């Protein structure tokens, strides 16, 4: 007994005394979001080692999961210890606070020219490129071929009327089959909403002013609420279902007829081989269907004496071999012209690459969007709950957006 006690005290003393921090000394901190356990760390670790071997300083690489990355980054900045390079899905608030280097300071001209037009524009703040596109994805309309066949449906729906009819027929199959899985829970509701909103003829803004509660948008949100509460062709509580552990999961289980997905979902479906699915364009009320394109960003934080180190790191990442290798491993889409060329031959990506030109981005260049996005995520689900009020919800979102735009 006494021996155990002594050993324990020794461990404690050892652990406290001999462990030293890794901070201090030259080096750069690189924070990357964890897209997958299998690929993210492996790639960036190798890249960091390559960088140091080529003469760059030591890299403090931090891979942080999406659930905590906002909290961690805010904590670092609150303590005046921002990272040197950050990967995140928003950038304009950091640009507005003057924390970032513009692209011309940290990227070679070749790299800057290689960006696809739409994505480069999506990373601009007040005319300068701050949010360097790192990868992209495009949403597409997924449908379950087996369930379609069972319900006697052939081609995927093109209009909203067709869509509702299809959903009803699928729901009528019974046995727990869901017509359309609609994720408007707080995880990524703004994405789902954006796609329907655009195809319903509305938009976030009209001519640079927020127009969240436009008539077209109210009609669209009412349409979605009806799908849930009147036609009853969705899964239970769509306003409280998230994408990844809710709607996508149910589609992967083979219980869902239609869902809006993206290329990583296709990758998982292929790997599991359980569901025969097809990918098509969105049903729309307009002439041409629109889909949502999303880009994530790399940002370089302004710190004393780190410009060259950061520039070297970014140039290394943006070399066509490196960037394409990672994007392909994670199942996402390219953001550079050279990357697009290299990934074209991959047949599995064709529907998404085709959709890219018609993909619209969220208004990420406006710092107010960071607040609006969170507001939509947290609140729009309430509109499609039983007893929900679509117009009321959109009005409130509009009010908050205008307030956010006006503030500072």
């Amino acid at each position: 007994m006494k021996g155990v006690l002594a050993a324990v005290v020794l461990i404690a003393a050892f652990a406290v005394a001999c462990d030293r921090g890794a901070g201090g000394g030259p080096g750069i901190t690189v924070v990357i979001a964890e897209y997958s356990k299998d690929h993210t760390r492996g790639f960036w670790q190798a890249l960091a080692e390559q960088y140091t071997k080529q003469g760059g300083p030591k890299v403090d690489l931090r891979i942080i999961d999406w659930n905590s990355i906002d909290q961690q980054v805010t904590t670092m900045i609150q303590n005046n210890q921002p990272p040197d390079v950050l990967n995140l899905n928003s950038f304009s608030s950091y640009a507005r606070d003057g924390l970032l280097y513009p692209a011309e300071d940290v990227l070679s001209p070749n790299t800057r020219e290689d960006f696809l037009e739409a994505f480069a524009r999506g990373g601009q703040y007040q005319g300068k490129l701050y949010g360097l596109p790192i990868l992209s994805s495009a949403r597409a309309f997924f449908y379950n071929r087996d369930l379609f066949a069972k319900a006697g449906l052939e081609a995927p729906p093109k209009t909203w009327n067709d869509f509702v009819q299809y959903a009803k027929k699928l729901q009528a199959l019974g046995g727990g089959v869901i017509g359309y899985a609609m994720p408007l829970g707080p995880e990524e509701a703004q994405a789902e909403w954006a796609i329907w909103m655009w195809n319903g003829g509305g938009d976030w803004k009209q001519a640079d002013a927020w127009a969240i509660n436009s008539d077209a948008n109210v009609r669209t949100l009412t349409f979605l609420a009806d799908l849930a509460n009147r036609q009853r062709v969705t899964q239970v509580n769509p306003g409280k279902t998230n994408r990844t552990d809710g709607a996508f999961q149910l589609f992967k289980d083979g219980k869902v007829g239609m869902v809006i997905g993206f290329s990583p979902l296709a990758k998982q479906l292929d790997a599991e081989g359980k569901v025969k699915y097809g990918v098509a364009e969105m049903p729309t009320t307009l002439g041409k269907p629109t889909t949502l394109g999303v880009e994530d960003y790399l940002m370089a934080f302004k710190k004393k004496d780190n410009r060259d180190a950061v520039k070297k790191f970014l140039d290394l990442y943006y070399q066509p071999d490196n960037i394409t290798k990672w994007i392909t491993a994670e199942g996402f889409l390219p953001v550079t012209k050279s990357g697009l060329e290299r990934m074209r031959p991959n047949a599995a990506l064709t529907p998404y690459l085709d959709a890219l030109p018609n993909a619209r981005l969220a208004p990420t260049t406006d710092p107010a969007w960071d607040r609006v996005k969170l507001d939509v995520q947290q609140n729009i689900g309430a509109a499609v709950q039983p007893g929900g009020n679509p117009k009321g919800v959109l009005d409130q979102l509009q009010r908050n957006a205008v307030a956010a735009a006006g503030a500072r």
Partner: protein
Amino acid sequence: MRRAALTAAGWGLACVVLAPYAVMLLTALKPDAELRTTPPRLLPVLWRPENFLDVLSDPDFTSWLRVSLVVATASTAIVVLAAAPAAYYTARHRFVGRTAFLVVVLVTQMFSPTALVVGLYRQFFELDLVNTYAALILTNAAFNLAFAIWILRAFFASIPREIEEAAAVDGCGRAGALFRVVLPLSLPGLVTAVIFAFIAAWNEYIVALTLMTAPERKPLTVGITAYVTAYVQHWNHLFAASVLAIVPVVVLFALIERHLVGGLTAGSVK
């Protein structure tokens, strides 16, 4: 008859308490394809104990396990070493500031670690202790101090002074009385404090998440979340890892649990 009723109640309790973890264990034994079937099945069709081997052979997992063991053991030791004297002294003596001390200790418990995590990060950064064992050990020790002090104090206070005095007079001296009489008599309290501090440190999440960003310093609670992320969900591996994470705690408990019933027997006062 009464014993039968007691036994039934006891075993019934064990079943109710373990039922959710049985679900966890059974899910951990399922292959990926069987995680969600229609209709839902409790038992796997294809039993896959290899999931546990997958987790055990994952070098990340063993690293997380080692970090958790070091942090939990060390912080428990520090808690007991700091709390016992303080609890003893406040139980036995009245002095200026005694109530204040006890209230201050209690108040430190009231700060939610979630609220303090930003300040903790900054403090340890300035001390160059981010990503070190020391930071997490000291933090866990400080946050578990109140429970240890309060329960040890309750135990020390409930031991009549006369026993101690008798032992001291009998030739042990004050210190001897403390070690040979008081501590053994308050063993249930000590054991409770040890279990509590260990489990609290073992399962701490948010401070570990913020202070330990290097992969080789992440404890189990933080590392395990990697199995189920936004894009890939390996529930079976997550649950297998969780089951494995429970084992060390149950082992510790099994080793010291009988001291919980120590108590005031053996002819104490009279």
